[in-house]
């Protein structure tokens, strides 16, 4: 997709005559050069040169070690601790009355961030912060160090960072860095009035029992917090779109399994900006790399949309945005990225959604649709509940593949006119839906809108057509197996009689005995072949013929199929069956079109039925 976009855009070139006009105008301006600035945009333009990530690291080191001013310069292994003037430190912050062993003040009163280097950047619950505050307040920080100490880079590797801001006139940034060997640096800094840069105004150092600190913190974090950087998936209602056409329509049971999987999945640590944005593996280079989208909403004042995009490269983008703000400005309030093992993620998710008990198709949940199946051998409108449930389950779980565009079909697929197919049709409110699975290996999903027009009845207009690449053989096999069960369950049915009659209810019979047998055979078989399903209700002509077919079922029950044929070719078919009380009940109604001239021609010329005189004129017109 990105290549398509670039290829297309690269073909846009400035026409030569336009180029010459612009050159002339620019050269004229160059000659009459007036060095004025019209809009003031230029001054803010900076170089687009890439920032060397190492500079970022250096800046980080500089900031972290600001309390320990480097004597030998950055890069040397020897660090010398230098104490700033301690009189600049705030006395209230080190009051021992609130917390005897805590030299920084009462953490429960600070709005601080505790970064444990676990990729969560301090995003813990209030409950966890309460526990952390209690722990930090009670922890033995020891006495402030007063001697210079030489530090190595290894020793100085920071594990924990606690940060808060004190006051607001001016605000003072307070930072505590805890190194791997238990060396603690506390630093206060504030913005310089002259330069606007943050300047260290004081620092203190301590040495703590790192193992005790580490185990205490880890115990709190392990017990109390969300299992993923995004929270606990079992605690919010999210939708997981796996691009399988189901748009996250999975059962609650499946979502429970998904939550468990997502909570236990290793999301890794948050990527740094330079690591995330400019990596060719981010998936941003391909519009269709996105494979999974997980979305949910949290809060309501205002509601915040949370989105996780998982690309096939393993790049994970998480963002939060506020929906209701109607402004042209960005209102993203959070943006993070991660890199995961995509294969592990993909296989885990696919295994869960493949087992989804209430799997639904891209066309909806067939168990809730009142569909009719036109299998490639017959029409199945009256299926037992058991067979219908099996069929719906099969249709819901069938692999409908991904949607394809028309140009992805081969010429043969486009042009082949004769083929076997299974089709389904159903109606829901003002829409008619058709789904045909073609022998050649694709499915056509057709949606039509039904509008009621006064005086015309229902008018049907096409709304959309979608194509899916499917395995016809698998579909055919599944359908055949289910219908075989239906056929086994179906009651034994014996043809009893067929009757053709004219509109006046006069029976129409062939002249010869052979013709009588031929008429029965025709009405049972070839007649039905001449019927074309229609949705039109537009009956213009009067009734001209009727056909009654009677079948005897088990237990002295009957099934009748009555066709009413109108002069304009409209055919109405009613099927009735004896119910448990012995009453004939209408079980199905269908509408068809038929070529009346052709029907009459067959009846008269091939079977020898004597038709009413007035139709002779029409019959003679038939070739």
């Amino acid at each position, binding site marked *: *997709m*990105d290549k*398509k*976009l*670039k*290829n*297309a*855009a*690269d*073909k*846009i*070139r*400035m*026409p030569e005559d*336009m*180029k010459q*006009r*612009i*050159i002339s*105008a*620019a*050269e004229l*301006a*160059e000659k009459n*050069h*007036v*060095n*004025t*600035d*019209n*809009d003031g*945009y*230029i001054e*803010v*333009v*900076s*170089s*687009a*040169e*890439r*920032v060397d990530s190492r500079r970022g690291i250096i800046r980080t080191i500089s900031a972290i070690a600001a309390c320990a001013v480097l004597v030998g310069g950055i890069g040397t292994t020897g660090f010398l601790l230098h104490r700033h003037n301690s009189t600049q430190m705030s006395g209230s912050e080190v009051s021992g009355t609130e917390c005897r062993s805590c030299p920084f003040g009462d953490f429960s009163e600070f709005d601080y961030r505790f970064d444990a280097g676990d990729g969560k950047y301090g995003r813990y619950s209030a409950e966890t912060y309460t526990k952390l505050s209690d722990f930090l307040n009670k922890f033995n920080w020891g006495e402030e160090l007063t001697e210079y100490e030489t530090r190595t880079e290894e020793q100085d590797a920071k594990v924990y960072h606690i940060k808060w801001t004190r006051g607001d006139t001016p605000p003072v940034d307070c930072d505590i860095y805890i190194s791997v060997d238990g060396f603690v640096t506390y630093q206060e800094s504030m913005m310089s009035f002259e330069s606007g840069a943050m300047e260290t105004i004081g620092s203190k150092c301590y040495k703590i029992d790192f193992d005790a600190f580490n185990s205490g913190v880890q115990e709190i974090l392990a017990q109390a917090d969300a299992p993923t950087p995004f929270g606990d998936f079992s605690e919010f209602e999210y939708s997981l779109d796996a691009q399988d056409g189901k748009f996250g329509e999975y059962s609650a049971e499946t979502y429970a399994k998904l939550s468990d999987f997502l909570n236990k999945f290793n999301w890794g640590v948050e990527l740094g*900006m*330079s690591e*995330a*944005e*400019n990596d060719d593996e981010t998936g*941003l280079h391909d*519009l*269709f790399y*996105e494979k999974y989208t997980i979305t949910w909403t949290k809060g309501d004042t205002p509601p915040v949309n949370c989105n996780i*995009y998982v690309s096939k490269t393993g790049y994970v*983008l998480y*963002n939060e*945005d506020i929906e209701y703000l109607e402004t*042209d400005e*960005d209102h*993203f309030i959070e*943006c993070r990225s991660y890199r995961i093992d995509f294969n592990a993620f993909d296989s885990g998710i696919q295994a869960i959604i493949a087992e989804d008990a209430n799997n639904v198709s891209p066309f909806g949940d067939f168990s809730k649709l009142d569909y009719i199946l036109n299998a490639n051998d017959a029409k199945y409108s009256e299926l037992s509940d058991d067979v219908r449930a099996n069929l719906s389950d099969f249709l819901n779980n069938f692999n409908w593949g991904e949607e394809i*565009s028309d*140009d992805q079909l081969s010429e043969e697929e486009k042009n082949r006119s004769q083929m076997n197919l299974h089709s389904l049709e159903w109606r829901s409110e003002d829409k008619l839906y058709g789904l045909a699975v073609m022998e050649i290996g694709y499915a056509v999903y057709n949606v039509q809108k039904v509008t009621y027009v006064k005086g015309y009845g229902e008018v049907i207009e096409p709304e959309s057509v979608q194509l899916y690449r499917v395995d016809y053989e698998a579909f055919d096999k599944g359908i055949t197996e289910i219908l075989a069960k239906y056929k086994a369950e179906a009651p034994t049915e014996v043809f009893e009689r067929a009757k053709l009659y004219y509109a006046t209810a006069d029976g129409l019979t062939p002249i010869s005995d052979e013709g009588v047998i031929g008429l029965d055979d025709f009405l049972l078989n070839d007649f039905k072949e001449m019927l074309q399903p229609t949705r039109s209700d537009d009956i213009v002509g009067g009734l001209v013929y009727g056909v009654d077919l009677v079948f005897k079922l088990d237990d002295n029950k009957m099934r009748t199929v009555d066709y009413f044929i109108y002069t304009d070719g409209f055919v109405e078919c009613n099927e009735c069956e004896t119910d448990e009380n012995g009453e004939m009940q209408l079980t199905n109604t269908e509408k068809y079109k038929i070529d009346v001239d052709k029907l009459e021609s067959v009846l008269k010329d091939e079977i020898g039925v004597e038709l009413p005189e007035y139709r002779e004129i029409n019959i003679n017109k038939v070739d």
Partner: protein
Amino acid sequence: MQKCGCAREAVERYGDMLYRICLLSLRNTADAEDAVQETFIKYVQKSPDFSDVEHEKAWLITVATNKCRDMLRYRTRHKTESEELLNGYAIEKEESGILDALMELPEKYKTPLMLFYIDQYKLDEISDIMGISLSAAKMRLSRGRKLLKEKYRKEYM
């Protein structure tokens, strides 16, 4: 430091790129020509010092996109004629859909998408050019590509 070159050389080197950006942004040939011309006039009049050619290119893109933004603001109050924009370029019919979809996106998403996918800029460079934060550039690109994908699939596939 490098001094900005002569007008002809600059137009020959950057004209197509700026015209493409302005055309996709403004969706009008005459307006695109105006925007490009004013960009180059500013270029020769201001005659800025550039650290390298990338800086020069980024400067021109910034001025052009700002100019487009001004013209789009003006256009909200003054309607312009629509035109069959992509006729006249050797763009295949199946390719034009993606450009049509791109052009229909809001300006704030269109520009980072153009810079990223067409002019191959990195995100940090886009944030510099557009004068927005890296995070905002990332989010505009992310949201833009999602909108583009949806629009392209829905209307042009």
